[in-house]
């Protein structure tokens, strides 16, 4: 988990403190949600310098538009939504596609795109599969990477992931299902080859 769970009352109290200019309140908000913001943006852009700049931009936007927060959703989801939209705009400016067709459409699995210079002899089977999976996750399109991270690492429910990305819950489930299946199948194929 990246942030301690907070109630809507806690969220509103923090928002009110920031809006009334209470000293240290905004820094507290940033500390509370910086890891989540970092996860979302890093998974989208995969570049540490860009992630830092975009994360900063996301929090400055949060600060600027916090008066528009209506407490209809958790503050965590609202901040993640801002981070997602900042990262998405960055990818669009760079003309990087957000989602790509899955392997069954283009014939390439994420693990097919992982560099072949990985030394199978050097690694144990467990760490070898873990390293391959991490590399494979990195090779997934930005949207699938981000959905996997929000759901598994940040433990967000599907409904919240849907709210953050602006997609339907069915679409999120479909991305999760297909990403996990593809990673598992590709790993099985790889391990079969290695064995």
């Amino acid at each position, binding site marked *: 988990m990246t942030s301690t769970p907070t109630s809507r009352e806690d969220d509103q109290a923090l928002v009110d403190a920031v*809006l009334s200019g209470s000293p*240290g309140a*905004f*820094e507290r908000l*940033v*500390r509370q949600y*910086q*890891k989540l913001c*970092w*996860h979302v943006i*890093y*998974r989208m852009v995969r570049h*540490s310098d860009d*992630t*830092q700049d975009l*994360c*900063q931009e996301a*929090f*400055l936007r949060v*600060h*600027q*538009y*916090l*008066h*528009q927060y209506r407490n209809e959703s958790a503050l965590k989801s609202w901040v993640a939504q801002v981070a997602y939209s900042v990262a998405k705009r960055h990818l669009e400016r760079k003309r990087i596609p957000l989602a790509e067709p899955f392997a069954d459409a283009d014939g390439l699995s994420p693990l097919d795109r992982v560099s072949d210079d990985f030394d199978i002899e050097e690694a144990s089977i467990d760490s070898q*599969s*873990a390293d391959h*999976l*991490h590399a494979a*996750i990195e090779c997934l399109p930005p949207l699938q990477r981000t959905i*996997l*991270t929000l*759901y*598994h*690492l940040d*433990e967000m429910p599907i409904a919240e992931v849907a709210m953050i990305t602006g997609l339907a819950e069915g679409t999120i*489930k479909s991305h*999760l*299902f297909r990403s*996990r*299946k593809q*990673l*598992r199948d590709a*790993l*099985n194929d790889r391990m079969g080859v290695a064995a």
Partner: protein
Amino acid sequence: MNPEEREWQAQEAAARCDRNGGDGHELDALGASYLSVVRAARQPIAVPLPADFASRVAALAAERPSAAGLDSRFERRLLQILAAILCVAAVAAALVYGGNWLVATETLASQLDRPSLSLLLSLLGCLGVSALSQQLRGLFAGFGHSDT
């Protein structure tokens, strides 16, 4: 349960098992095949967040005015401009049409001093209809109560 639904359930079982710190013994073969995938997806991101990130962003934010402040300043300025336009319009209208308004007001005042017979009859008619409707409403209400 169709095969896709079964596979989805297996993926979710593996995710629950990993979140609860299980070693996968309770999973069936299909669920166990997803354990390494969900473990990899739960691994923290290797690139760390700078330690002073929050304080740096907070300092930057403090230097910038919030949109709420900008909005209220903008609204105040807009109200001042609108009030000034209204004042100018009122003065201009008084200068252009002031004479006509004076004549019309004097005519109306003289008519009100000597009300015509038809005006008085209309007023009495309105009062009579209003009183009659009040009495009829009371009568029907009385009938309603006596029925119950």
